[in-house]
């Protein structure tokens, strides 16, 4: 499973995420790609292949990508689309370059989750249409609440400690210029006073409804070195899907993420991620998923969620910084969120994260999920060398 070519992420760009972008998807995608290409001092003709990610349910129209295609410069050019979280689109772009057919690829995803659709009602469409959906008990929030409660009971994480995870992320977000929900003055009490969703989850454990887009430019080694002096090398990449019904899987263990991470680390030659990885961007839709996913990624020992937050092991400057960007608590444009994790992890490794830079970030893990509570997980290992 070793990679036959060295492939790097050489450029990335996010919108300033917002509750209402105020213009069309096409405008959003156009502005973003235009400025990314300008940053890299290249034109659309330097892009060998385009890989898009979006979701028709969330965009509310059939084959949603047909319109933005021309706006991002993909007209008459090689282009395809992944219908999953953006992290899978990066994985496909990587495969296309590894094949030797292409040297460069542009990945872009967009979502109008803030101004156009209700996230939860869209997520209900991933549920089993015959039984679970009709019953009305299962939804993105209720399942995440069950998952949170399961972890808290099993490993003794208190509500206050869970709120401290949200506090960390909201404060990190205040340092991230692209974040939508920023709270420099966040405290566990403020989190615990926010609107209850499905207890123990509250509004500030979750995510803001977000309009946003993210684009990433990948290149094979030779091209990458020409385009930047700080390429971010993809050293490992893998994905894995879990069982469908929630009763069939251990929501706290997240077996599929463990498998995906194991494969990605093996490719990257990482033996002990808890010692080698310095920074992680985790697609924790609800803050309760952060310790669960970080443990499945092998960054912290199982059940250490309380210890990690109490000792500040995952804060900026901590042992392994998790979600320096604020994670999905700062902005969660559906399908783009995993792509943003890859972009933010790249920022960290390249030392370009600015105020929310984790000092000495060399090896990063980026994680994306599709579905509810990590049904499908994708993992990247990114390195500065």
């Amino acid at each position: 499973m070793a990679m036959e070519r060295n492939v790097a992420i050489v450029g990335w760009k996010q919108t300033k995420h917002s509750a209402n972008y105020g213009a069309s998807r096409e405008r959003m995608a156009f502005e973003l790609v235009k400025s990314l290409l300008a940053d890299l001092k290249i034109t659309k003709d330097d892009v060998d292949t385009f890989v898009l990610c979006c979701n028709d349910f969330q965009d509310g129209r059939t084959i949603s990508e047909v319109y933005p295609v021309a706006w991002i410069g993909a007209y008459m050019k090689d282009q395809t689309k992944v219908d999953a979280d953006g992290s899978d689109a990066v994985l496909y772009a990587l495969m296309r370059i590894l094949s030797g057919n292409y040297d460069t690829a542009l990945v872009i995803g967009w979502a109008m989750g803030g101004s156009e659709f209700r996230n939860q009602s869209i997520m209900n469409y991933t549920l089993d249409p015959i039984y679970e959906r009709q019953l009305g008990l299962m939804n993105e929030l209720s399942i995440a609440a069950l998952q949170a409660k399961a972890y808290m009971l099993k490993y003794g994480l208190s509500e206050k400690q869970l709120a401290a995870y949200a506090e960390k992320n909201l404060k990190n977000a205040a340092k991230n210029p692209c974040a939508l929900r920023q709270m420099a003055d966040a405290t566990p009490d403020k989190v615990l006073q926010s609107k209850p969703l499905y207890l123990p989850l509250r509004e500030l454990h979750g995510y803001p409804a977000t309009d946003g887009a993210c684009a990433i430019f990948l290149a094979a080694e030779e091209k990458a070195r020409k385009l930047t002096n700080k390429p971010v090398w993809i050293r490992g990449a893998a994905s894995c899907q879990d069982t469908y019904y929630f009763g069939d899987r251990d929501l706290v263990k997240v077996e599929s993420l463990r498998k995906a991470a194991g494969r990605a680390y093996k490719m990257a030659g990482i033996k002990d991620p808890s010692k080698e990885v310095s920074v992680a961007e985790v697609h924790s839709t609800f803050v309760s998923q952060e310790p669960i996913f970080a443990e499945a990624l092998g960054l912290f020992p199982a059940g250490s969620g309380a210890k990690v937050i109490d000792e500040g092991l995952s804060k900026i400057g901590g042992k392994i910084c998790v979600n320096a960007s604020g994670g999905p608590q700062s902005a969660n444009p559906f399908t783009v969120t995993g792509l943003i994790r890859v972009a933010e992890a790249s920022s960290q490794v390249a030392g370009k994260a600015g105020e929310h830079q984790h000092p000495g970030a060399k090896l990063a893990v980026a994680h994306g999920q599709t579905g509810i509570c990590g049904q499908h997980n994708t993992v990247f290992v990114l390195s500065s060398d």
Partner: protein
Amino acid sequence: MRDVAIVSVGYNGRFVAKRPDINIPELIQAAVENALAKTNLSFGDIEAVIEGNMPTFEGVNYPNLWFSEHLGAVGKPVMRISTGGTTGMSAFHAAYYHVASGLYDTVMVVGWEKHDEGDVQVGLIGIVLPDVFAMMQNFSPEMSGQGTSMFSGGSTGGASYQAMSYLAQSNGSVEHIDMIAAQARANAALNPYAHLQVPGCKPEDIAKTPIISYPLRFGHTCPASCGACVMILTTKEKASKASDHAAWVKAVAGATSDATTGNLVDGQITDPAEQAHCKVMAKKAYKMAGISDPMKEIQVAEVYDGFAHQELLWPERLGLIPEGKGPEYVAKGRLAIGGDMPVNPSGGVVCTNAIGASALVRVAEAALQVMGIAEGGHQVPRKVHNALAHGWGGLFQFVTVTILGDAPRK
């Protein structure tokens, strides 16, 4: 670059209008089991799965999650691809890149649609005029009903525009579309998996059907089918152990034109029959496959003909027959199973359309022709060295091309 082979093609059974007896995961599982049974492989040998269909048609988002167990994919990578009508072939291309990248050796690709569980035209109208349609929906509940009925032409409306333009350019008439539609229905009768089978169908039979949107008759249009298609791909090293048959992937290409019906490029309005992106991608694919004279080197083609006139249009744009010669070729029987450029011996999409599967079925049928094992009498009589498969999607914006051969690329 690694050589990639198709070693198995599986169907859930014959494509039909309604399958009330099974649900979607069961439909898919039947095709998966069928494909595996034709190989020496078991579930454990499949390292990754690629899945695709039209997202909104059956009302389930990310259905790949739902099929986990039925795909045998628990604990494996699954990638979901969706690009409108080209979905099946885009998913096939993704499967190809899974192997060509060197990350995986043996992968499975699944394309499916169960049209009896959704409203196809409602989904399709959204492509024709998505912005207007969305506006109508959002404006008021009363308007949303009218919005639906206002554009009830669905894809046929756009296709009739393309057909008129094509007939004008190629000096064809409605009778030529009758001829190719009759050929498709008769070919389908030789394919045990095809949906609309009319043994010995004659152009006169098609001519009796009413006009839906001039020049397209009811007999020129495709049915809404239920069915799934599965293929297994592997490396050169593993191909001969996996199966007795192999079709080698020699080229893959896909591109997109603009979304508007009349492509508005630099202020110049072109028409949907022009298909510049199809010509560009065909050239690219021939170059990748090392084919210099497609008319001689390609022995059979499977094109995505949701509407019968497209079975004349695409071979022209793909360079398989001379430009403007479609009507002449069909009149002389040159596109028939025994002709010198057989097109759609399977009966094509106009006889079987499970949308998310249709573009994948084109590759599957091309693979069966290369392997020489097409069942029921639709195997072309001459030796097939190279076969071309084509897909289109959206409102003619998307195009995908795949070329398969009986030996790996040189």
